[in-house]
């Protein structure tokens, strides 16, 4: 990973998004160059996944924190955005209630719960997209890193966190639409969500968000802060004995990563048109980890690559051979961990150049 390859990746992502958008809007449906709108949404979705993968790589690849609950931050950002989109529906809902979303009318609620107030304001909602995952991560990370919970224990409690949120959001009483989640969105920032131009705009926004995240992550890991992080990853106790406070370094990178995941989720929801509690399921978080493992842990670009490749593979396989998808995903997990510990990027690097700084296997217990 160097400056050139990151710049190249940013260029490909943003340029590719603009190209797709142009091909979608600028050509007639019959033309061989035409990109159908579903492809635009699909690619937009992959880019959001890539942001999540980047967030996972930031904590796993550079701080050694294997999070099995990162999809929780992704989903929380998504819910914050979903709440804004829900409020934008207004009187066009099935029950035409100007204030209450349909599911609340259906559940016979009389007033908006306090935590729904303010979400009609796009600025407030955007703030919440950042704040909600950030504050949860701050709280969780502060508790966890302060008491030096690390390794597998941390992985398991992050999984418990997302599982608890999954159960909580399934409850109708929580006021987030229960099982069905939030859906049936109409418009965003007063652009109709069904329009092709809006979808192209969302794709470009996702690409820019991914590019900014990538640059930010690159900035972090190459800074002095990043060097300490890598030291924490490779020898936490030694770093502590030298005089650093590993828990603080871990906490900040953890919060930044959670915010990144939240932004990814917020861009994901308008493109897929629904957010429901299944986004919290532990399997989703683990899938995000496998994207990073496939692409190459601790390489940033590898995370983006892995997310896009695996998701594209999933789209293709679940359509063509739905029976085979879980076999393929499971085999991918096993294959990558056993035979490809440095991921695709690691293999490419080994072919072309001298070995780079990919994380060493954790020290034995």
């Amino acid at each position, binding site marked *: 990973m160097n400056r050139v390859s990151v710049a190249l990746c940013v260029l490909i992502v943003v340029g590719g998004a603009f190209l797709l958008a142009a091909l979608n809007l600028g050509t007639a449906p019959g033309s061989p160059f035409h990109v159908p709108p579903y492809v635009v949404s699909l690619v937009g979705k992959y880019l959001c996944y890539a942001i999540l993968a980047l967030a996972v790589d930031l904590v796993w690849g550079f701080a050694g924190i*294997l999070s*099995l609950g990162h999809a929780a931050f992704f989903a929380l950002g998504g819910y914050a955005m979903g709440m804004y989109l829900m409020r934008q529906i207004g009187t066009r809902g099935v029950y035409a209630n100007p204030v209450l979303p349909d599911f609340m009318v259906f559940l016979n609620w009389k007033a908006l719960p306090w935590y729904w107030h303010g979400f009609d304001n796009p600025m407030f909602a955007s703030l919440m997209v950042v704040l909600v995952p950030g504050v949860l991560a701050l709280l*969780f990370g502060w*508790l*966890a890193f*302060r*008491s*030096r*919970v*690390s*390794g*597998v*224990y941390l*992985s*398991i*409690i992050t*999984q*418990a*966190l997302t*599982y*608890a949120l999954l*159960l*909580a959001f*399934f*409850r109708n009483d929580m006021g987030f639409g229960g099982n069905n989640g939030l859906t049936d969105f109409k418009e965003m920032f007063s652009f109709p969500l069904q329009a092709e131009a809006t979808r192209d705009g969302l794709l470009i926004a996702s690409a820019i968000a991914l590019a900014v995240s990538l640059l930010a992550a690159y900035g972090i890991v190459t800074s002095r802060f990043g060097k300490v992080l890598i030291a924490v990853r490779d020898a*936490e*106790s030694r770093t502590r004995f030298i005089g650093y406070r590993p828990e603080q370094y871990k906490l900040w990178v953890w919060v930044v990563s959670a915010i990144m995941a939240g932004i990814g989720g917020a861009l994901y929801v308008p493109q897929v048109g629904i957010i429901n509690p299944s986004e919290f399921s*532990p399997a989703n978080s*683990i899938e995000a*980890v*496998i994207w990073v*493992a496939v692409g190459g842990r601790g390489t940033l670009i590898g995370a983006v690559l892995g997310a896009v490749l695996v998701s594209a593979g999933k789209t293709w396989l679940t359509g063509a051979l739905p*029976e085979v998808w*879980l*076999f393929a*995903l*499971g*085999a*991918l*997990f*096993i294959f*990558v*961990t*056993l035979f490809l*510990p440095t991921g695709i990027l690691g293999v490419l690097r080994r072919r072309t150049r001298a070995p780079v700084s990919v994380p060493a*296997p*954790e*020290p*034995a*217990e």
Partner: protein
Amino acid sequence: MKFVLGLLVFLAVFAATPAPAQDDPFVGLASENFDDVSAAIAALALSGNPQAAPTINALQNDALFAAPDGAILIQTDDGFLDARTSQKVADVDQDDLNPVRVNNSVRRAIDAALGSLNLFSASATARAKAAGEVFISHDPAALPALARALAVEKDAAVRSVMEQARAAARLADPTTSEPDMLAAIAVVRARGDLDARNLLASLANQPPAVTAAAAAALAAIDRSEQLWSLAQSVFYGLSLGSVLLLAAAGLAITFGVMGVINMAHGEMVMLGAYTTFVVQQAIPPAMSGWSLPLAVPLAFLVSGAVGIAIERCMIRFLYGRPLETLLATWGLSLVLQQAVRSGFGASNRQVGTPDWMSGAAQWGGLTITWNRLTIIIFAVVVVAALMAALRYTSLGLRMRAVTQNRRMAAAMGIRTPWIDALTFGLGSGVAGIAGVALSQIDNVSPNLGQGYIIDSFMVVVFGGVGNLWGTVVSAFTLGIVNKFLEPFAGAVLGKIFVLVLLILFIQRKPRGLFPLKGRAVES
């Protein structure tokens, strides 16, 4: 003496009933007047006449007719019987007969009469059941019948139910004297269940002494009810705890002792459950009671063999890399789930419960279902066997040696790779056994294991890794805490609460309840 008393009551009742039924209750049945019919039914029920039951039953089925000559006839499939004598009556022209008509009040009389008739049934359970029904209806009209039944009742258990019924009926009777009321309240209070509570709560317009006694009885019932529900919560908690213990026991070996993060542990449980299903399909129905005892060793072998295969083909390459192990075994769990889904279908499979495990016992206010009790006992036995195997067998000795100091063990001539595989197989096999038990209380589907994996890890981590006793304590603690939270918070919120408590607990004590002492700086 008893007989004389019974006779007196008998006569008193007869004196109170309306005229037509004075000597022969069958006469009243022919009446056009519904009140007379009702009275006749009541009198018939009390008469002790062996023909009372068939007659009233026939009336209930609209098969009772009055002949012009005053005979009462029961219509059967092959002709008519005389209700008084049960002799067959020949040459009856149905056109001459008047059906005995019923309206709602007559139907009530029929129901009451059948109820009190059962008080004299030959079977003790039927008598107790009838008395129980009187308790619920607490109809004062049943008092005379109860008195007669009590006079001849020999079975102590049935007697006490009848006394409760009499007390209930007396409470509802406005003519009962105050001392009798107080005595009745005492009897009902001693019964102490929800029906008794409702009965006492419905008392109104009573003398102050009676009201006070009823209030005191209500409070006493509420208190004991609370105690029983506490006991019930403990039982449910133990039951949930035993399920958690079974699911986590294998993990306590693979994760706790070996340090391998096996995310496919839940799938080992699932394989055990499917083994049970296959065993039940394979054995003849006559032997269905043996299906579970047969499934236990088979499930152990199946899951254990799969476990050894996993260790040999995958995990041994990943020792010392816990996070990679986690990912690889997660992938394996996806493969196993999909394999079972392809092989057995995605829907739930029906696993039967043997007769000896179905049903429930009532002990005071406590309901104990046999399958839950069996699973509690089974869990304890499995864990005890596991501990004994680790402690007393030569294999267990070698397992402990390898996990404590691998190099030293190898130097002593122990084949450590083989011991690793066997240890992993043992943990997986125990998971398979857990699957047999879980097949009795959970849906046997490809997703069975997924529901337990997070809970199992929580149990092991909470109890302290590497400590089987810690796992036992933590499983039962979590089970009971969960069940105590449920009434206040609801099932889902209670579970969330427990998860959050666990997350906070791990922050406080990252090594669990009973950490193994050591001086390692790194985890």
